[in-house]
């Protein structure tokens, strides 16, 4: 890594980096603990510069904001199956609830696909999914993603493998399904990426189910993203992709 990049903490804290350099620097930040500390301090400093510019907000803003929050769904806490900065085992409980959400969301995703007659979902998958649905019928988040009025589907086939994305722009989330990906050796794993304006961000590891399809995965913050991609990574996952994608599915427009 360019030694010079450490001096970018100031420009970063002042939001003075052009978009591409911001991405590079954020990648560097995940590996550079000292930079992270300095960035935090300098952001606390720029925050005070900002406070010094305080102005009375326009009349009416408060009412509009308070009225609007009733219509804006809040994001859940960040549950990262693979923490973007490190790989640890401590995320296990949250991982489980995340998987539950994913499985549930996907049950409905599959129904939509089937109903849409896209022919993407195989009989076997539907069997798996109805089992999941039965098992998870009581889960609270059922229908959350797929109940969104703007849910859309896109799909790509590459060789034997098919990847499908069911996305809601409003909810800023998408479910990724695949079938036909080959098994990977024990020291490797599939990893899902959200490719957004600032480059790829991990959306977690993909487990390969018995039927040859990956366990459905929920990706968040997909609103600005162009596509979802799957790569093979060393077991435990990588902070950034290290291989070319096997599948790359554009988010439905």
């Amino acid at each position: 890594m360019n030694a010079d990049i450490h001096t970018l903490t100031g420009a970063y804290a002042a939001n003075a980096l052009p978009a591409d350099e911001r991405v590079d620097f954020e990648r560097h930040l995940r590996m550079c603990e000292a930079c992270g500390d300095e960035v935090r301090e300098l952001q606390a400093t720029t925050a005070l510069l900002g406070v010094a510019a305080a102005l009375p907000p326009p009349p009416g803003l408060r009412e509009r904001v308070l009225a609007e929050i009733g219509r804006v769904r809040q994001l859940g806490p960040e549950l990262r199956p693979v923490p973007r900065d490190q790989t640890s085992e401590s995320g296990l409980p949250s991982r489980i609830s995340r998987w539950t959400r994913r499985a549930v969301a996907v049950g409905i995703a599959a129904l939509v696909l089937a109903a849409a007659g896209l022919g993407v979902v195989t009989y076997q998958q539907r069997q798996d999914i109805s089992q999941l649905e039965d098992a998870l019928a009581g889960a609270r988040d059922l229908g959350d993603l797929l109940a969104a009025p703007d849910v859309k589907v896109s799909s790509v086939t590459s060789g034997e493998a098919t990847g499908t994305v069911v996305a809601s722009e409003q909810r800023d989330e998408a479910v990724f399904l695949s079938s036909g990906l080959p098994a990977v050796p024990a020291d490797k794993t599939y990893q899902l990426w959200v490719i957004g304006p600032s480059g790829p961000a991990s959306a977690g590891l993909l487990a390969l189910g018995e039927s040859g399809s990956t366990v459905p995965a929920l990706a968040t913050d997909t609103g600005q993203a162009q596509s979802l991609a799957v790569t093979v990574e060393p077991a435990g996952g990588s902070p950034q992709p290290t291989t070319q994608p096997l599948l790359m599915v554009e988010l439905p427009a």
Partner: protein
Amino acid sequence: MRVPAGGDPARSGEFALVAEDSLEGLLGQVAKGDQRAFEQVYERVAAPVYGIVRRVLRDPAQSEEIAQEVMLEIWRQAARFSVERGSALSWVMTIAHRRAVDRVRTEAAASARTARALWQDNRTEYDQVAEQVEVRLEQERVRRCLESLTDLQRESVDLAYYGGYTYREVGELLGVALGTVKTRLRDGLIRMRDCLGVAR
């Protein structure tokens, strides 16, 4: 408005408990959907948020729009705030400043900014807020610390942070090498950090 919630959380150190009425504590409640807690957050941060957005964008109509987006973003993302990554005020102001800067860097907004508002004098409004003692003290502290910087440090910080320019644009405006701008921004902010007593 209680602005200086700003320095405090940072100063209290990372092992401090999060007090319920601190901005951090309020965000925790907002994350669970507590609208009344959000009202309190609004009271504390709306003026700094609107102020910094307005400082960068200049145009009042655009600033109001962005300030509203920022407040909604705080509501939406409250659960994503983590004390490990800095104080709540830092988090809020980073969102606000970044939104304003992102808007500036879209071409349409850039032209509106130059055409309409570059020459507007905000002095009356500054004075209104400055009526409040805490804000005036904070402004005074920041002003004094800015004065302790070298000219090049101060101009770099001013153009980058308050002007919303990229360091490349700052280099162009000041006629200095990019490497110089990067280091002046960094050592200028480090000096500000020490002068303002931001916790290490």
